Every structure is written in C-alpha cells, then in structure tokens.
C-alpha cells in the first residue's frame, strides 16, 4: 500500500531518537532466525524484495506501530507464505506441517549462503535513453496508487533537480505486484528544504530521493 503508516517522512509526534550504546546485532535469538528465514525464503524467488516490502506495508497501521522491526518481518513473512500457498493458516496456528510442502525451484543450502550475503544487482538493460539530464528541473507527480510505490508522500508534487542518473533499475511499483520488472531509469532528485517544508524550513537543508522516471515530469 502506498499512503500507509510506513511512509513516515515528515511526521511529528514519534518522540526522541533513542540510540542504544553497544547495541547487539540481535536482541534475542528469534530476531536472527526471522532474518535468516526471510533471506532463505527470499532465495526461492517466489516474491521480490518489493513484494516483501509491500507485505509489511499492508499490515494494519496499529499492528505496524505496535510491533518491533523483526515482529513486522515475521508477520509479513507469515502472510506471504499463506498468500503464496506455501503453508496454510491452520499449519501456522498448529506450528507444524499438516500437509506435504510444494516443490520449490530453489532452496537455499548452507553452501549457497555466500550468495545471499551480497546484495543483488537491480540494474537492467534500458529500452530507451533516459528522459532527463543532470541539472534538469523536474516535478514529482502527485500519485496515490493503492499499491506499492517508492515515491514518499512528502516528496509528491514537488519541484526538484536531477542530480544523478543511477541507471535503469527494476521498477518496484510493478515488481511488487508480480507484474514483472518493467525496468525504469532511476535518478537522484534533490529538493530544497523550503520546497518540501515551506518558507520556515532550515535554508541550509536539502533532501534527495531516488526517483524512478515514471514519478517525474519535466518542470
């Protein structure tokens, strides 16, 4: 979902930052297991990284806010497993298999783990040259799709400048829906703080987003 609670940029009321000295990598054993389960199931390629993000964004807002980070990951993973018919809800409730598993094309073994410890490459061949050049002024579109997007609300309908062309990448808005990679040019677009937050914003502030070409129009 797009206009959901996960899209937090610019919101007020969440309070102070609470850095933890000497923070452990995982605060409890189960957090590491959730991360590992997520990576292992991601390796099956039954869904994309954007499909995974969309499953977190689809959590009810009160659940999202009341849950820790890895709790959200767990709930999103459980929902995805059921949606993809890999497990059934009664099996989740029972905590054990009631039926045989379906056959997977890929299963992560310990020997393959090195491959998931390096992030993937999301660049793809481009069907056309980039529409915008570095230095060009652009306006972000005012879009409100009910499905996954990576254009945050605070940066919609805003005037910015193309600062870099980052290549042609898998388009999250399509990939999250299982509609294929639909590669699009990706740009770093920078906005002044005043464009985003108004005349009283810190005049020394600028903020950039990574914006896919369908998010942009020439200004």
């Amino acid at each position: 979902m797009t206009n959901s609670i996960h899209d937090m940029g610019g919101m007020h009321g969440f309070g102070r930052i609470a850095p933890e000295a000497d923070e452990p990598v995982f605060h409890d054993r189960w957090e590491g297991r959730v991360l590992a389960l997520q990576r292992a199931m991601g390796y099956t390629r039954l869904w994309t990284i954007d499909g995974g993000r969309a499953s977190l964004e689809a959590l009810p807002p009160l659940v999202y806010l009341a849950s820790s980070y890895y709790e959200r990951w767990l709930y999103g993973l459980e929902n995805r497993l059921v949606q993809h018919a890999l497990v059934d809800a009664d099996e989740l409730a029972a905590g054990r298999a009631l039926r045989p598993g379906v056959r997977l094309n890929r299963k992560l073994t310990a020997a393959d783990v090195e491959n998931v410890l390096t992030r993937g490459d999301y660049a793809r061949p481009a069907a056309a040259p980039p529409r915008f050049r570095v230095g060009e002024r652009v306006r972000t579109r005012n879009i409100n799709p009910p499905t996954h997007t990576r254009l945050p609300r605070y940066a919609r309908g805003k005037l910015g400048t193309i600062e870099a062309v980052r290549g042609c990448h898998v388009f999250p808005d399509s990939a999250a829906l299982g509609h294929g990679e639909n590669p699009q040019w990706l740009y770093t677009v920078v906005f002044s703080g005043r464009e985003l937050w108004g005349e009283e914003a810190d005049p020394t502030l600028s903020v950039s987003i990574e914006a896919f070409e369908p998010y942009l129009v020439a200004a």
Partner: protein
Amino acid sequence: MPDTPSHPPEHSELSEMDVRVRALESLLTEKGYVDPAALDRIVEAHEREIGPHIGARIVARAWVDPAFKQRLLADATAAARSLGHVSRVGSHLIAVENTPSVHNLVVCTLCSCYPWEVLGLPPVWYKSAPYRSRAVIDPRGVLAEFGLTLPPETAIRVWDSTAETRFLVVPMRPAGTEGWSEDRLAALVTRDSMVGTGLPKSPAEAA
C-alpha cells in the same frame, strides 16, 4: 513437555515470539523449504563477520589514498571491491563525502534500507519511527540528540534511500592524524559517522 513452565509466569512478549519463530522454522523445515544449517550460517555471518569495521576500512583507505577516494566517489561498489579484504559489496553502493561546507545524513523513511554489507545490520534507532519521520524535516534536531551540533552555516544534505541504491557517508578525517596508518585511522571511523549521525573519533577519544 515438562510439567513446570520454562519461563516465569509473567513471561515476556519476547519469549512468546521465540516460541512462535521456533514453530515457524520447524514448520518450514518439515515442509522442505528451509535448511536449518543455512539459517545458522546466515545468523553467524551477521553476528561475527559483517559490520561497520568493513566500512571503516573503506573510509580509512579513502583518507590516505586520494586516487582511491576519487574512485570511491565515482563508483563505490567497484572501488570497495578492489580492496582485497572487502569481499561482499553489492551493486549500487554510493559514497558521499562530508566537507567543511556540507554534512550528509542517510535515512530510509519508507523502511530500513541501509548499506548493511559495509555497516552491518542497521541499529534499532535507524529503523525507528522517530528517526525515519524526523531526519528529513528536522535533521539538526535529530543530530542534536546524537550529541552532534554542526555550525549553522554547514549545509545539511539528507539522502532518503528510496530505491536499491545505498549510501555510505565518507566523514572528514579528524585533525591531528597526520602520518597515521590506515589501520589506526580505521579505528576512528564509527558506524554513526558513516550514516551521518556522528563524527569519527578524535585521536584523544581513541586513546
């Protein structure tokens, strides 16, 4: 099952989560979807091998080797991979340099995107609502809560990680480190200094 509960009667939400995750892992193992040995290896790599010491080596090299720094700023993935001891750098890593006039700060307002291969998994605060909501609208207020007050004339540039590009801040080399070895310099480079919520340690702090 033992007769006596293994947890205190008022057992915490965390222990309930532990039970739930163990059940899911055994379910997925029974189904033939996951290999517990692979899960062990993933956890081990994150607990023991992947962390901010990797990014610190990259930054320290950039401090001592201007040609490397130029390559890093032009294509951080390729430059980092050229360091023999930094093996697992994925695509689309972008290094952004702090200068006396610009301070960079990295956030992911939508989720938790973070250059984990070079910094390790993100800390809780990076994934928290306060940081994600405020970094883009009130970065000076955020930095103050980390104990960092920048000169008012220093411009602040916030990078919102809204795609698969990942950002590594190259902080400024601390004064008083002339002639230091790369290893000694790397010990000054903190995780927060590579996110932008801190500065490297000074020689006095490292002593």
